C-alpha cells in the first residue's frame, strides 16, 4: 500500500487531501504541530476509508527538528505533500517583526528546510513525488499581502528550481496554486463565490496533478489567466492601484 505524508495536516485543505488519498487506498502519515489533535481525523480516515493513518509531531518553525522528524517516518512516504502555510496579518507584519518573521518562517524557510531533506532522500533513490501548496499571492507583490506574497514567491521559485533539479533524478515536483479557497485561513475575508474553491476541489486537483505528473497547476483554471493579467500590468500603473 503506497504511503502519503501530509505536512500541516490540521488545515481544512489537508483534511480534504487526506480523505482523498485515504479513499484511493493510501496509508496516511499526518504531521502537524499538535499531533494529538489529529486523533479524530485518524479515526475518521480509518472508519470511513479503512485507511491506516499515523500521527507525527512536526513544527515548520523548528527547522532543527526536521531531520529527526524525517528519519522517524516508517515507512518512508512515496508522496510528500506540503500543505502548511501562515497567512498572517499584513498590517501587523509591517510593524511587528515577530509576525513578519513568522510569515516568512512558516511559508518559506520552514518549507524549504523540510523539503530539502525530503528532496535529498528522494533524489538518492530516484523515487518519490513532492507536491506543495504555494499561492497566487506569490506571483506579484500587492500592498494588501506582500509579506505573505513574497514568502510564497520565494517558495514558488524554490519549487520550480527543485523540479528542475529533481527531474534528472526521476523525482517529480508539483506546485499547486490554489487561488481563493474557503478555509479557516480565509474565514474573515469576503471571497467572490465564482473564483473561490472548496478544500475538496484543492484535494482533487492535488490528486490529479500528482497522478498526471503536472508541473504547475491552478485549482480553478481561470486563476492562471487572472494572474497573467495582473502580472502584465505595467509597474507605473500597478503601483498606483489599490490591490
Amino acid at each position, binding site marked *: 500500500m503506497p504511503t502519503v505524508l501530509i505536512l500541516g495536516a490540521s488545515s481544512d485543505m489537508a483534511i480534504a487531501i487526506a480523505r482523498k488519498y485515504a479513499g484511493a487506498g493510501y496509508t496516511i502519515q499526518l504531521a502537524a504541530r499538535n499531533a494529538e489533535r489529529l486523533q*479524530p481525523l485518524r479515526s475518521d480516515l480509518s472508519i470511513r476509508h479503512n485507511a491506516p493513518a499515523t500521527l507525527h509531531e512536526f513544527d515548520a518553525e523548528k527547522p532543527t527538528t526536521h531531520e529527526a522528524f524525517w528519519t522517524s517516518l516508517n515507512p518512508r512516504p512515496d508522496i510528500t505533500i506540503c500543505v502548511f502555510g501562515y497567512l498572517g496579518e499584513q498590517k501587523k507584519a509591517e510593524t511587528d517583526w515577530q509576525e513578519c518573521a513568522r510569515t516568512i518562517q512558516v511559508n518559506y524557510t520552514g518549507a524549504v528546510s523540510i523539503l530539502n531533506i525530503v528532496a535529498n532522500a528522494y533524489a538518492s533513490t530516484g523515487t518519490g513525488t513532492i507536491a506543495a501548496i504555494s499561492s497566487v499571492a506569490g506571483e506579484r507583490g500587492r500592498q494588501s499581502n506582500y509579506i505573505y506574497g513574497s514568502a510564497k514567491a520565494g517558495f514558488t521559485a524554490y519549487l520550480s528550481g527543485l523540479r528542475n533539479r529533481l527531474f534528472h533524478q526521476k523525482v517529480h515536483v508539483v506546485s499547486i496554486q490554489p487561488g481563493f479557497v474557503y478555509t*479557516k485561513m480565509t474565514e474573515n475575508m469576503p471571497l467572490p463565490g465564482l473564483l473561490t474553491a472548496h478544500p475538496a476541489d484543492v484535494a482533487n486537483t492535488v490528486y490529479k496533478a500528482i497522478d498526471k505528473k503536472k508541473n504547475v497547476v491552478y485549482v480553478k483554471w481561470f486563476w492562471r489567466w487572472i494572474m497573467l493579467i495582473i502580472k502584465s500590468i505595467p509597474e507605473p500603473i500597478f503601483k498606483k492601484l489599490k490591490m
Partner: protein
Amino acid sequence: MKKEIANWGNYPVMQSDERNFTQLEDIRQFLPQAGPFIPRGNGRCYGDASLAGTTINTTRFDKILSFDTSNGILECQSGITLDQVLEVIVPKGWFLPVTPGTKFITIGGAVASDVHGKNHHVDGCFSHHVEEMDLLLADGALITCGPSLHTDLFEATCGGMGLTGLITRVRFRLKKVETSYIRQKQVKAANLEEIISLFEKYKDYTYSVAWIDCLKKGKGFGRSILILGEHATISDLSPKQKDQPLQLPKKKQITFPFNLPSWILNSFTVKAFNFLYYGKNFKKEINNTVSYEPFFYPLDAILHWNRGYGKKGFIQYQFVVPMEAKQGLIEILQRISDKGLGSFLAVLKVFGKQESLIGFPMEGYTLALDIPVRKGLFETLDELDRIVLQYGGRLYMSKDARMKPEVLRAGYQHLPQFLSIVRKYNPDGKIRSVQSDRLTLTNIKLEKLQNT
C-alpha cells in the same frame, strides 16, 4: 465575515457572521469571548431556528470517532451529515435508528430538533437512541450528558433548538439491517376516513406515512396514498439484488437551477399535480422492494428543490393534534382546502406515544405542508394555529418561522421547566437565535413567563 444565510424555506434571509471550526480547542477558546450566537448545522430546518447575527457552523466538525460494528454504536462529531453516516454504516449492515425525510441534516441538528421519522410510532425520536453527547456551553465548559448523566441538560438539549449549548459529540445506537432495501407497500385511500382506518390497520408496520391531497373537496376529501415499509431481508430480494444486499444506492442527483417564479404554484397547478400523483398508482395496492434512498429521501434526488417555491421562500406548516382530536384534523384540512393552501407535498402521519420535555411529537396526527410565502398567509396560519391549540395540539419549532410566542407556550406544557434549564446552562442568554428571540425564549425574564 458577514454572509447571507437562510434555512431550507428561504424565509427569512439574513446577514450572518458565520464561523467554522475543525478543532474543538479552537472553538472552545473562542466561545467565552464571543458575542451572542447560535449553533448551526447544514441549515435544513425550515424557518429561523438556526439564524442569528453570529452563527457557529459545525459542518467542518465532521469526524467519525468510533464505530462498534458488532453492537451498532456510532460516535461522531456533530457536524457530520446523515448521508455521510449512511455511507459508512449501511455496507456494514446498520441503519439510522430514526431518519427524517432528508439525509442532508447534521447529527447535531438531528438532536437539536429531536427529529422523527416514518417509524416514530415504533422507535420514537432520534434522542431515544442517543447514549451520550458532549456539549460546549457558552462559557467554554465541556459537559457530557445523557439519559442518566446531567439528565436535565440532556432533556433540554434534545429538541431544544441549540439553546443549551453547542453539541460537539454524539454517541448513538444504530439499527441492524440485513439489506439496504425496503419492502414497500403503497395503499390508496379514497378519503380521510379511509386513510385514518388504514393507519390503524397497518400500525404494526415499522415505517408509515401518507401523502395527502389537501385540495380535494367532497367525496374524495382527504384522499391519500399510504406508504408503508419494512427493512427487506435477504429472502425478499431479487436474484440481482441478492448479489450485493448491502449496496449503497447510486448517486443520481439533478439540481434545481434557479428560483421558479412564484406564480407557477397556484391551486390549479397543485390540483393538476395531485391528480397525477394520486392517479399514477393505478392499483389499489402496490408492493415492491426498493432501495432505501427513494423510500426515505425521495426529494434529496433534486438538489435545491426549495427553489421551486420561488425567491420569496415558503413556510412548512407542521402541527400535531392528539388522537382524539380527529375533528380538529378535519377542520384544519377543510380550512386549508377552502383557502387553497394545498401544496405538492402534504404529509400525514400518526405519531406514537412520546414523553419528552420539549420535543414536538405527541400521540396523534401530524400534518406537514409547504406553502409559498405570500400576502395574507401569516394571518391565515394564525387562524390555523388557533384551531390546533383548541384541539390540544402544537407546532414544530424546526419548521417554524412565524408562530406567535403564545402559541408556543400554549402548545408546550413543559416550556417553563425547559426554560429554567436553558437559564441554568446559558445564563446570560448568549446562545440565542432569531427564532428564540421571536418566541421570547431568550429575551424575557423567567418570572414574567411563569406569571403569564
